[in-house]
């Protein structure tokens, strides 16, 4: 793994954007349920090895909006870690949903996109800027609960890293074709 370099504000950085969305979150106005969903969701992310390592190395930036969590991991982490991260979040959520009534399970969907991302701030609010956050917002609307999409660049990177991925189902997102890592 290359040496981590940290994030520099207002500087375009090559990274993986992981966007995860709590499915059905916005239909539920019950504050207790909202908080419970968020709690389980954040805990599932926080307990992954990748997130803990990236946070320690300051190679991840986080932007959360309503029900969508965006994590920008610098490319130093490698695609295998990203793929494992997705699996780990879903596994953790499955465990955290144990004992919760079926109708109140926290379910997520998401994606991994590859490209340039810029960490910016606007009057105290940090956010991820660039084409990818906008693309993730468009793509998320197309996904069903439990689905995880990846873009062509990430799929190619998985193949280059020797991680078997074929055949991944294709999904037409309008502006381009993506692949479903999880169905």
């Amino acid at each position, binding site marked *: 793994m290359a040496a981590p370099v940290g994030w520099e504000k207002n500087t375009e950085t090559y990274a993986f954007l992981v966007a995860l969305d709590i499915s059905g979150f916005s239909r539920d106005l019950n504050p207790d349920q909202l908080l419970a969903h968020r709690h389980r969701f954040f805990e599932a992310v926080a307990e992954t090895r990748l997130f803990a390592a990236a946070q320690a190395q300051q190679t991840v930036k986080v932007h959360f909006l309503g029900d969508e969590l965006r994590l920008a991991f610098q490319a130093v982490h490698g695609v295998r870690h990203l793929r494992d991260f997705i699996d780990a979040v879903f596994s953790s959520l499955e465990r955290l949903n144990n004992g919760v009534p079926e109708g109140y399970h926290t379910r997520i969907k998401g994606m991994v996109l590859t490209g340039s991302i*810029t960490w910016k701030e606007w009057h105290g609010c940090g956010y991820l800027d660039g084409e990818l956050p*906008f693309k993730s917002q468009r793509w998320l609307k197309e996904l069903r609960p439990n689905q995880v999409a990846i873009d062509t660049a990430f799929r190619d990177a998985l193949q280059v890293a020797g991680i078997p991925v074929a055949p991944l189902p294709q999904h037409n997102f309008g502006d381009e074709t993506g692949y479903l890592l999880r169905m």
Partner: protein
Amino acid sequence: MMHYFIVAFGHGKDALLTAPLQQATAALRSLLDAACSATFGRFPDDVLTSVAPGGVMLAFPDGNPAREEQLCEAVVSQLAHAQATQATVLPICAVITHGPMRSVDVLGYHTNFEGRPAIAAARILAELSSGWLAVGKSAWQFTALAQHLGEDQRLPGKHEGEAFSVRLHQRVRFPTPTSALPVLSSSTSIAHNSFVWRAGIRNAADFFNREREQRTLRVYLHGRQHCQIVGPRRMGKTSLLLHLERIVPTWKPAAVVTYLDLQDARCFTLRVWLAQASQRFGTSASPTTLAEFAECIEDMLRAGRHPVLCLDEFEELTLRREEFTRDFFVTLRSCGQRGMSIVTAAQQRLSNLTESGDPTSPFYNTFPLVPLGPFDDTEAHDFVALAREGVAPFTPAERQVILAFANGHPLALQVTCFHVLQGREEGLNLSDALRRAEDDMQAHLPTWQAKL
């Protein structure tokens, strides 16, 4: 949790965006910066922010709902000004809600608002059309807002609670691009006359020729060079700069072109100039110093963009040396060396605007010349012969007198064509139409003499 008024801004679900959403949202943030500066002197310290793709939320501490209205009114002013100057009008809508909320840290990052008013604002915003300021139920009770609210409106969508209905503000309306052009209400039909000359030509269809100059400018800009357009008064320098603003992005998709009229009062002081330039560039920050402006340009360059700064009536800067000091020109030069291009328009060469001992003179040495003169005979003939939608072609006799009168001068061509067309409508003969053209030309260009 503390109580806040939330004002959420977006573009509207029906927004006609002429730029990618990413740029439009950056422009929205700049617009809010400018509106806050105009209303409160600066962005208020006590306001919390949350940035999203396509919008922003501002949370004002409870206490004074008039502040939210004032901000929205300032946004209206900004948009109205853009409309009046025929600049790009950003589609905007907004919603005000109220209630307990907080700004929370998520996984160690402060990015999110938590609470019912934030959720309601997001849902309402998703259903609003551009132009509207909606007020959610939670904010209806506040007198300052209530006096301007209309009847209950049910929003579409599968929502519950507050997000199901709003009241639309009856006084604040954000100008939208679709209403940028006034609609003639008169039942009298008016013949189309596309010849204009009061200001630079802003309609792409009305811009004519200048192919040679465009080719030269394209080469310069391709090499990220500066250039100076020099020509006499009313020769079409402004129209050419405005045309560059439209066409350069088609030459170079990475280009971001900004036109500034230095005779505009908003360019008289450095502070407002910086705000104008950055707002037009659509930068997320609103610089107040030259260093911050340079940083904004640097951001654009790092993002792979090619900023192109078009400065019209450049002489104005040299007349305001106390405001635009050597530091200003040095900063522009530095931005240019890093990759920003500057295109100036002036009546004199830049070298003539400085004396040899002038400390700003090195800045001017890097601008190749693009002279702008009258149309040649072929160009002038083509201008008059051009088929224009809704305009009957000029007769051979009309063409002859127009060409002879105007002698290739772009302004004279516009003015003469206008009056010949107008004369047709009023039943004037050609001589009377030319007399009107002569009067108009004298008014706009006292030194001009017809070659009749």
